[in-house]
């Protein structure tokens, strides 16, 4: 409350108090009467929920409600107002009456009663409905001399009950304790009519005489400005709030004074604004970064939209002249708004849109280097890559061919073959998936030198039909103890043993294995070793002995004969001799 207003209120109560009670210490000498004498004094427990001040008051029922089909009265002792220039009775009341139930006030000498209207509510002397909370009521006793008493009369019909009627703080005054009443007031909502003044109309009345009516408004957090309201006609007063630019918030109220008492309307607030775009949304089923497409609907406005700006946390992250933009995302919860940009200024921000995006990323390649001539199985791992078999490509630059075998959405094996002439140096990985391109600078290195792990050339010879143990040398590191050794058709690898620099490979050579040289490859899951050949020669054609499948040794014969003995053919199987 402002100091001025406080002083005004004190001045209002400076009217001379003739008599009064707050009904805390006693019942004020008031008496319940009527058909059921249901008025009661005491602590309020229902209805209004509390007394106007303190804890006690008079009520039809202190717990709320009242009796149906009854007319009851509350009469308080008369007060002698002889000599008073302008006697006034005031009290606080709270009521909530059902349809068909009526309250009224009467004044009299304690024996004879006459209906009377409260100040500002006449000429009707009865009322129903709700008071809208605790409020002051006044009865003007001008012209009355001698003792005068006030009586509350409640007439309830046969059905339906409201919250009740509560009375507190009964006072008798000489003077003008009654503040002006603002009976009607303009309601101003937000407006897109920027820079256009708003008219405020008020209907104000005082029981004696108004001194002034003032419009007080403040722009945003600036100091308030007072504008005298012009008297229009009757009880009407008018003034204007000047037009302001978009985004301005105006808080305003009306103050009316009779010179002694001040009434202030409840503060109202409105904004000058320019419409915001609507329906801000993600333009794809999924939010997959590093940028995502947002779209929105244009605002419905008579103003010309010059463009849009998308913001996150108050920072503009994208501008567009159309109803869509590509915006960057962090991978966490990004909260975006979009505003239209008008010639008059920036419009309101849209409803926020929270985007929880996934950011595709390649975690790395393993191994991440290789020599010219290498053939590698490179594991690619990542997040949010959404890789789909057959729809993924990868490149590592000139001289390096890359095939992709997808394991799952985030994992794949790259079949990397580095040409002998590939230039050494770091290579960028460019991975193209359903979510676009992901580039990792320097993800792979083509090494410089001649240290490529490979098999060591040796005289590797076997004969048709024999079981043999081959010693295949290699340089480098074998990534597994059980590499896959491929020797071509007609030679079965029975066992492989990895030693330091040498593989022992037990093989069985079919009797009809093709003669001549063939390429030997050893795949340890990471690298395909090559570089040597194996020669198959003719079988021995005469001799005796014993050969067994678990004991590699010299050639056995007669293997071809078994094919004539055994002729098994079953689904899903192939056979070789």
């Amino acid at each position, binding site marked *: 409350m402002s100091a001025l207003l406080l002083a005004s209120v004190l001045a209002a109560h400076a009217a001379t108090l003739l008599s009064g009670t707050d009904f805390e210490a006693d019942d004020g000498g008031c008496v319940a009467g009527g058909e059921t004498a249901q008025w009661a004094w005491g602590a309020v427990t229902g209805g209004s929920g509390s007394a106007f001040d303190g804890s006690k008051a008079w009520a039809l029922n202190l717990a709320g409600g009242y009796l149906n089909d009854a007319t009851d009265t509350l009469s308080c002792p008369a007060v002698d107002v002889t000599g008073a220039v302008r006697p006034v009775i005031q009290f606080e009341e709270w009521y909530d009456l059902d349809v068909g139930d009526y309250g009224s006030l009467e004044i009299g000498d304690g024996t004879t009663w006459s209906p009377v209207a409260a100040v500002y509510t006449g000429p009707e002397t009865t009322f129903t409905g709700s008071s809208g909370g605790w409020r002051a009521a006044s009865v003007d006793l001008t012209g009355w001399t001698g003792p005068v008493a006030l009586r509350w009369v409640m007439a309830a019909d046969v059905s339906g009950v409201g919250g009740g009627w509560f009375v507190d703080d009964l006072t008798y005054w000489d003077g003008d304790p009654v503040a002006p009443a603002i009976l009607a007031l303009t309601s101003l909502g937000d407006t897109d009519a920027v820079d256009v003044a708003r008219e405020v109309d008020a209907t104000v009345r005082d029981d004696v005489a108004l001194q002034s009516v003032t419009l007080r408004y403040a722009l945003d957090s600036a100091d308030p400005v007072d504008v005298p309201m012009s008297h229009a006609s009757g009880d009407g007063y008018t003034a204007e709030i000047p037009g302001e630019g978009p985004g301005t918030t105006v808080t305003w109220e009306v103050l009316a004074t009779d010179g002694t008492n001040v009434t202030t309307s409840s503060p109202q607030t409105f904004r000058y604004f320019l419409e915001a775009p609507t329906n801000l949304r993600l333009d794809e089923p999924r939010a997959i970064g590093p940028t995502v497409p947002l779209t929105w609907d244009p605002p419905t406005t008579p103003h010309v939209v010059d463009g849009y700006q998308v913001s996150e946390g108050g920072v503009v992250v994208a501008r567009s002249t159309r109803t869509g933009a590509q915006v960057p995302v962090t991978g966490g919860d990004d909260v975006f708004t979009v505003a239209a940009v008008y010639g008059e200024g920036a419009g309101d921000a849209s409803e926020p849109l929270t985007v929880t995006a996934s950011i595709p990323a390649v975690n790395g390649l393993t191994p991440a280097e290789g020599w010219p001539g290498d053939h590698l199985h490179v594991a690619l791992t990542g997040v949010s890559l959404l890789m789909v078999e057959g729809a993924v490509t990868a490149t590592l630059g000139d001289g390096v061919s890359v095939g992709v075998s997808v394991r*799952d*959405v985030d994992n794949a094996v790259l079949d990397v073959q580095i040409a002998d002439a590939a230039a050494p140096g770091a290579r960028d990985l460019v991975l193209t998936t359903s979510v676009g391109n992901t580039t990792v600078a320097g993800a792979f290195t083509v090494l410089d030198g001649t240290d490529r792990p490979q098999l060591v050339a040796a005289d590797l010879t076997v004969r048709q039909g024999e*079981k043999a143990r081959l010693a295949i040398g290699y340089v480098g590191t074998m990534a597994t103890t*059980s590499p896959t050794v491929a020797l071509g058709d007609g030679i079965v690898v*029975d066992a492989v043993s990895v030693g330091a620099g040498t593989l022992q490979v037990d093989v069985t050579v079919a009797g009809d294995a093709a003669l001549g040289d063939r390429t030997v490859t050893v795949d340890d899951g990471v690298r395909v070793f090559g570089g040597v050949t194996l020669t198959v020669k003719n079988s021995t054609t005469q001799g005796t*002995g014993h050969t067994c499948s678990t004991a590699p040794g010299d050639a056995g014969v007669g293997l071809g*004969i078994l094919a004539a003995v055994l002729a*098994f053919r079953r689904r899903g199987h192939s*056979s070789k*001799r």
Partner: protein
Amino acid sequence: MILAPALLWLPLGCIDYFVDGKNTTISTQTVTETFTQAPVPGVDVLFVIDSTGSMAEEQAGFGAAAGGFVASLDALGLDYQIGVTSMDVADEGALLGVPWILTPDDEGLAADLAKNLAVGTGSTPPSAGLDAAALALTDPLGFNIGFRRPDASLQVVFVSDADDDSGPVLGADPVSAFEAMLSTEASGNGLTARASAVVGDVPGGCTGTSGTALPGTRYAKVAADSGGTVASICAGDFSSIAAAIGAGSADWQLSFPLQADPIAGSAKVYVNTVLVESGWVIDDAGPALVFQTAPPPDALISVTYQLSAG
């Protein structure tokens, strides 16, 4: 079931013989058959979770079992992808959560799965799990790119305390339509496509600590017909159910058919060239080599045995 191709049936010499260029005498024969275990089997697991108001405790309970489910898949060495959608067709079958496709390499996988399984309880009954699953698998709006892999089997897990009320997507007979969809999924890659159901007991429903569940008749039928797991949603602890579903998601080959009956005691088994002396039997009825525990992915399996030449 994946039928690992037998790369070689090779009658080799383990033979007493005499060759003089004119006559050959054979008394016994040794045969080697070779197989290759399938690669790491891929399985795509789709959870379809009831998102109506009565499901809060069940979602929390299943989320608490997420770690056990993941562990069961990991124990099998499966290459899996997991997605979760709701039974509310308004979600269009979109996989929910971020990330919406979970893989074994995801950090905090169990926590992410638990989070994704909590699809919310804001949907209005009835729920339509079969319709929702069909939308998720057909993905008409492109929400789920990458979830279904051409070389992976499929496991659809329905979790609900009421029965299915599908129709708008799958038509008047949603059970048959969804089973046909599973068959199509399976025939597309030769792998399995099955459903599991964690629902109210059939036919009487059930009451558990989290409330009463109506019988999940449709879900249970789809699960039973496809060879999946059927379990009660009234079970207080979902960990064993989750583990069973996880275990039932694998397609490992344990039995490898042989082309001839080995002489008793003559068989020697090698896995990746290493002699394995136990953990397998020769089933004469097949005949077949049957492992107690599946050989690892891509394993080279050789069995050498003797048989009579007569």
